[in-house]
């Protein structure tokens, strides 16, 4: 803690998996249209063939872009947690920096889907009274440390409602 850290390396696997999942979904739709095209009357064949080709190209391009961006996201998504703040940095070309004082945090939500469980990661959502910020994945041990820290500080901070 107390220094700028990257998300765990395993998150890249999750992102890639998500990219392939998106691709599979699009591909299923595309295949559906292809089958429809085979069964459709002559008049409808041409527009259906075209939409099939366009969809296929779109799904391949999306997959390639998502896969290419995995490393970019991982390299330029960092966070810093110290005794008083959570700081999130994201992006290189367009850079976003978020500062959340722990005293303002209302609750921390930890989420774990089947893929994240596979890699023992947790998705962390830091909720304040004016919206929430996300960290896509932290090692479960780190997530617990963060949770403990915030709970400790939250008890010290006065309830200002």
């Amino acid at each position, binding site marked *: 803690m107390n220094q700028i850290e990257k998300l765990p390396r395993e998150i890249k696997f999750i992102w890639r998996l998500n990219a392939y999942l998106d691709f599979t979904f699009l591909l299923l739709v595309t295949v559906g249209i292809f089958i429809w095209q085979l069964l459709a009357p002559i008049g409808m064949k041409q527009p259906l063939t075209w939409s099939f080709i366009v969809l296929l190209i779109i799904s391949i391009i999306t997959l390639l872009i998502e896969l290419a961006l995995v490393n970019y996201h991982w390299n330029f998504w960092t966070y810093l947690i110290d005794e*008083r*703040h959570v700081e999130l940095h994201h992006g*290189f*070309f*367009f*850079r*976003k*920096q*978020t*500062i*959340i*004082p722990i005293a*303002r945090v209302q609750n921390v939500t930890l989420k774990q889907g089947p893929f994240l469980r596979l890699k023992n990661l947790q998705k962390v959502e830091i909720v*304040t*009274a*004016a*919206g929430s*910020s996300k960290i896509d994945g932290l090692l479960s041990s780190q997530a617990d440390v963060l949770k403990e820290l915030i709970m400790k500080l939250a008890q010290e901070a006065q309830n*200002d*409602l």
Partner: protein
Amino acid sequence: MTSKTQHLHPIALIFFFYSAFKNAIFPIIITIVGIANTKKNTVWLIMVFAVAVIILLMTFLKYITFTYQITASEIIIKSGLFEKKINHIPYDRIQNITTNQWFFLKPFNLTELEIETAGHSNKAEVQLQAVPNTLKQEIDQLRKSPTSVNIDATPNESTNSYAITWNELLKFSFTSSAFLSGLLVVLAIYGKLQHVINEQIYRTAANEFSHLGLLIAIVLVVIVLLLFYLASVLVLISQYYHFQVTETANNFEMTRGLFQAKKTSLSRKRIQAVIIKQTLLRNWLQIATIQLVIISNSSQGDTEKNIVIMPVIKVSKIDKFMQKFFSDIPIIKIDPHPLFWTFYYNLRNATIFFLVTAALTIWLLHNFIWLWAILIVVELIFWYIPAILTSQRAQAKIEKDFLIVQNNHFMTKSLTYVPKNKIQFIEKKTSIWLKKRHLAGVTIYLRSGNTQHKIKVNYIAIDEINHVLDWYKE
């Protein structure tokens, strides 16, 4: 001081009748459309009679089943005929109480109470339509009694007050753009009515109209607009008539209204930020509006609505007003020094939007040269003037424990004062291209209503923003 179960004053029947009528209006319209073609008078008579009976029945039943009871620790409201509803409201859960006194309640010494609690519902939790004037004080007394928790250690007993002058009220009402939204509502209703109104009638009316010629049509439109404008001015005057704000013991109380004397109270603890707003027209007249961003758990309709603490005030009097009511807020001069690149980026964005809209206009209306020429001039004004104003006005400054941000939305200038401990979180945005020009943007997130309120400034000096971040992290 436990009172027994009570009914509202019978005059509350007016309110119940109104709400029953409002609930029935949609079914009524549908029925009218349904029987529009029958010419038999008896059908109409039966319909009118049935509707009247149903509405009156609903009104009386609601009135009879609605009771309230004031006990030492809570208010108990009972309502409902088939589904009995009992609502318990402990005093320490009450956030604030608004009183509305309609002119017809005054002679009976009655008033309407709206009680807002910390629950998460969108409407004011409890409405007591016609209760004695003294009930509010009674409840206030019970809320303050030692049985309920009271944190205020040293109540400041001195009373501050400020009222708007007649001159200010007139300026305020005549420079409001509220009539535009009213006009939109009427246009929307008209659009719906078009389907309902008999085709035949509509066609004859349209025919009649087209005979009149273009000039008269324009004159008619202008007259309608003027009428709307005047109506909205009158409404605003009656709403904000005698606006007065008083502060006692860290509690603000706003009183206003001619036909409906409205009294809203609000605790200082719930204030998140103070905003001074000025539209372009009001900027020229040197008047401004002061609003508060507050935490609340209920407000009708839009949850993110700021409370107006002073609808209109002369710019020269603002400093004095702030000193009187918000003595902790530092008064400083805002004088942005816009950078060349600030103008560059704002104007670049305006140019993109302008080119897109202009291209669309020309493409759609290429046959009507005059029309698109006029529209292009309008678009020019619509995109570029806000861009210039935004560049000139953007600034973020720190003074003691306050962040002071000035920004611009369309043509409205707003100056926001936020204490550090009310900022929920901060976001800084930049890009490698902006960084080269030493620019960045910042968004401040506050709590408002039961959602968020964002304050955003873009394309200002990165040093200014880093200064804000350092101050915030301290």
